């Protein structure tokens, strides 16, 4: 029996109405709100009533003078977090799949931040980054380094949040890489032993053969970076001023202000932007994907 046929018989052994609960749930809680949000983005919506105004919300959203800062910050944030996670996670994964002692312990330590609520991390770090009383600055000054106003300095605030995001998200990226490394057949490592050296192994076996994991890490963390909100909101609220505002925090503030139509239009724009940026990237990676 070929593989195709066996799949088919598996599917047909379940009646179609088994799909119904999933379709209903997905329809009510995902498809319907998504479609209705397209409609409401074309209205002036006060929750009490909605007036159709065509594309005026899109016009207002895109002509917002502060939008350019938000777009720039969103892009910086997505590129930096996904870049740093990719670069740092690979060596960490190599270390954690090697023969070091207490491997299990280190693996837990690296993965631990993933398990904590992002809001809790944001609040904790914003306390630790306080200019005078925060743990980080107290530690810095005790070894004679100057104190840094991590979140209060407008040109630094966004990058401070990026650091925390990388710290938190590193665990996921590392686990994906560890999976990739452990899937490399032992033969390659045996073969490279003849050429000697850890560097040769890292450069010519691990990096090329975990390429699929690299793509996954980049795509996941890039999308995550583009639509990141909770950490920024908990740490800076987009401030000081507009210094760390990203697209999502701009949208959220418009929603808070009661501009429901306008913020819905912003969400549609965010949706389109993520799609436009990520689909070509995904298509490119799919073409280059290795079949190990």
């Amino acid at each position, binding site marked *: 029996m070929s593989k195709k046929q066996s799949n088919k018989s598996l599917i047909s052994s379940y009646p179609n109405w088994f799909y119904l609960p999933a379709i209903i749930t997905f329809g009510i809680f995902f498809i319907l709100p998504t479609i209705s949000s397209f409609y409401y983005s074309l209205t002036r919506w*006060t929750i009490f009533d909605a007036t159709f105004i065509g594309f005026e919300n899109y016009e207002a959203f895109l002509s917002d003078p502060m939008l350019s800062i938000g777009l720039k910050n969103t892009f910086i944030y997505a590129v930096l977090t996904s870049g740093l996670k990719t670069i740092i996670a690979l060596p960490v994964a190599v270390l954690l799949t090697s023969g070091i002692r207490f491997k299990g312990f280190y693996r837990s330590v690296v993965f631990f931040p993933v398990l904590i609520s992002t809001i809790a991390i944001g609040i904790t770090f914003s306390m630790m980054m306080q200019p005078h009383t925060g743990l980080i600055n107290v530690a810095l000054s005790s070894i004679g380094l100057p104190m840094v106003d991590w979140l209060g300095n*407008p040109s630094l605030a966004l990058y401070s949040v990026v650091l925390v995001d990388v710290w938190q998200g590193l665990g996921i990226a590392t686990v994906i890489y560890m999976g990739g490394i452990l899937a490399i057949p032992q033969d390659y490592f045996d073969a490279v032993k003849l050429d000697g050296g850890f560097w040769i192994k890292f450069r010519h076996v691990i990096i090329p053969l975990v390429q699929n994991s690299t793509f996954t890490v980049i795509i996941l963390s890039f999308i995550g970076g583009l639509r990141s909100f909770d950490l920024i909101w908990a740490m800076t609220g987009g401030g*000081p*001023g*507009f210094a760390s505002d990203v697209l999502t925090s701009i949208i959220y503030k418009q*929603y808070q202000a009661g501009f429901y139509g306008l913020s819905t239009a912003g969400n549609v724009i965010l949706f389109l932007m993520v799609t436009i940026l990520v689909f070509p990237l995904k298509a490119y990676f799919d073409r280059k994907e290795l079949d190990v």
Partner: protein
Amino acid sequence: MLKKVLTLALVSMVSFSLFAGGQQEDVQESGPVTLTYLVASGTDQNQAWAACESFMALNPDVNFELELRPGGTDGDNIVKTRLATGEMTDIFYYNAGSLLQALNPQQTLVDLADEPFMNNVDDAFKMTVSQEGHVYGVPNQTAMGGGILYNKKVYADLGLSIPKSWAEFAANNEKIKAAGITPVIATYGDSWTAQLFILADYYNVQAANPDFAAEYTANKAKYATTPAAMAGFKYLKEGFDKGWYQDGYATAKYNQGLELLATGKGAHYPMLSFALTNIVENWPDSASDIGFFAQPGPSADQNGATIWMLSANYIPATTKGAKLEAAKRFMEYLVSPQGIEDMNRNVPPSGPYLVKGAELPADVLPAVLDIASYIDAGNSAPALEFLSPVKGPRLEQFCVAVGTGQMSPEEAAANYDKDVANQAKQLGLEGW
């Protein structure tokens, strides 16, 4: 029908607290009535509960259940969503003025205009809770002054006198700075506190341009093109340029600001006088060291305070039967002499009452007397948000951007003028 389904689906997606604390539908005609009451947590909560307890002591047939919401724009959302879905509590507490207008009161609230007890309420207050002749709200707090809270001990130690013009204020600040004390406390970690230099300057704006509010609402006057309105943005920048703000002000929180003021490490805090209630709670011994003066303007001859009207209690249209009757009795109590007397005893007033015949107690805080003296002398004006529904939600961000040196006052004013257009359009105002 489809639209209704769509609204329902989307609303249920975006609101967290929708099903929290729904009302019981079947109201018993006899026996005790339980009223649910939605207030913002914090100071408002304490004040509301004090009023409830006093009322329950007099009316054993009524019980209260307090429900809490966050303040600020998060709270606005909860109030709007619950009103729109008919899930509002039996009574709720909310701002007067421009925020009330956004609640669509003619559809969602009970009109109290014909209730006899409304005669006790000051007409200036009624204006801020009315729409087209219908009156909706009853106060249970005092009006507030917006201006500069200052530490009297610092002033006495340095031999300073109260500034009547901005130049005098700036000169005082230099002397205070030379003495090693923070001249102006800024707490941009709670960004709403950054707006005071602009909002509390409204007395001076109105003195220079008496028609500003009307023209501003009609999209004729602008911050960027009205020098008197622009001044507030320039003050923020001046503070940054001259180093008046304390270290770490960009992330400091409101409570840290109060501590600096109460302990005399900071001399001035541009703030609303409700902060006095927090100072009494946390630094009771320092409360009598705090005074108030109006934000000084360009000229010493025109010096007056900007006044914030109080928030009010409203009854949503969904409250019916015995509950409605009990809710109205509670409203009547709040503006009765007995109610005011109980309030004075429970919570020290942070400004004058807007109820006819209500007197401030003899042991009132000095800062409250300072505010009352501006009002009694006729040197006061309501804040712009009580005269015009147009207020951009991002004013606080622009203020922080100017106060941290990221944006020039001109740029911020021009961008803020664009920002308010969204609000005006959302409210469907003429001329935008």
